[in-house]
């Protein structure tokens, strides 16, 4: 639906605002909106800090059972993740963070798919369904 560039800290704010607007429009509850926006914030910042910048794409989707949801895809052309299991471990950090961004984002959404190979960038797609 809409592609948003992630190049600066302000772009992360813009991604959050876009996700919040789309999530509210799709009828997600306030708690689910907040969870999705927070997950988007973590993943957008990962794309910026670890991927050296990337893109976010926000779409409204419909489940097999006819429920609306919001899907967000993040892509970057950064160095990629060598050990995905390690990156998804609570408390493991490659920088100075809390080490909860990626693992926490996975817990905040209903569907989480991560694709990464060293040298070929990282893509993360998350979905939150309305209840």
């Amino acid at each position, binding site marked *: 639906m809409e592609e948003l560039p992630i190049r600066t*800290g302000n772009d992360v*704010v813009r991604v*959050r605002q876009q996700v*919040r607007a789309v999530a509210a429009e799709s009828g997600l509850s*306030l*708690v689910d*909106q*907040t*969870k999705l*926006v*927070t997950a988007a*914030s*973590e993943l957008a*910042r990962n794309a910026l800090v670890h991927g050296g910048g990337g893109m976010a794409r926000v779409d409204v989707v419909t489940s097999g059972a006819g429920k609306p949801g919001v899907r967000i895809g993040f892509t970057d052309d950064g160095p990629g993740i060598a050990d995905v299991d390690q990156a998804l471990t*609570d408390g493991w950090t490659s920088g100075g*963070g*809390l080490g*909860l*961004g990626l*693992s*926490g*984002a996975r*817990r*905040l959404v209903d569907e989480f798919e991560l694709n990464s190979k060293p040298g070929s960038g990282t893509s993360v797609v998350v979905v939150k369904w309305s209840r």
Partner: protein
Amino acid sequence: MDVDSNQGRMGAYLRDHQDKVVSRWTELVVAGLRGRSSAAEVRRELEDLYSLVIRAMSGADVQAAGELRAALAELSRSRARNGFTPSETALAIFALKDAVYELVADTTDLMPEYLAFSRTIDDLGLHTFETYATAREQVIADQAASMLELTTPVIRLWDGIIAVPLVGTLDSVRTQLVMEKLLETLVATGAEHAVLDITGVPTVDTEVAQHLLKTVSAVRLVGAECIISGIRPQVAQTIVALGIEFGDIATKASLADALAHALSRTGHKIGTA
């Protein structure tokens, strides 16, 4: 024929027809202004620009090009202040092409010169556009800086209890500013309790949490206690799902709860008389 001699011939032509061209240019520009400046004023402005254009095109005057750009930048700024859009300013510059074209249309042997001249004017028009954008960016940067100042007040709630209501995005620049002001106030007033209210922070992610934790540590280092308030139910659930631990830091749902907590810690009792 090379570009320089093109410009030389065009420059001579423009000088010879100065009065006619400036009159027509003024007419065209005034028509687009819808009465926001008088014709005499516009003519004076355009005459100055026109003589700079001629000087720049003659090629002999090395300073003219710089002066011309400076004059255009000034024009762009003054028009922006008077409520003109950047397109209107650029169109006023482009109108010079129309004014000249009407004259040279009959003189076919000047066409190559006219094309080169036309490209020069396009550049100048774009230059006014760029100046406008730069000026706007400066205004936005200034506003962002003053917003940062505005949105980080430190408030005295009670004797020995101060509060910082945080609003908007808590990035590292903002955190640094909040921390400095908070620590300064704690030391200056000798307050022993500080309340960080995050009611106005829409998203508490790991970065915000980390900034909050750092601020709390700094507050403790100067001998005060920190309470985080304004944690709304949806934010509380998100924090739990993220796995962030606030440990032994006192957290409250509202600023009122935080004040009551701090008051009881300082030995005050709240009740109805």
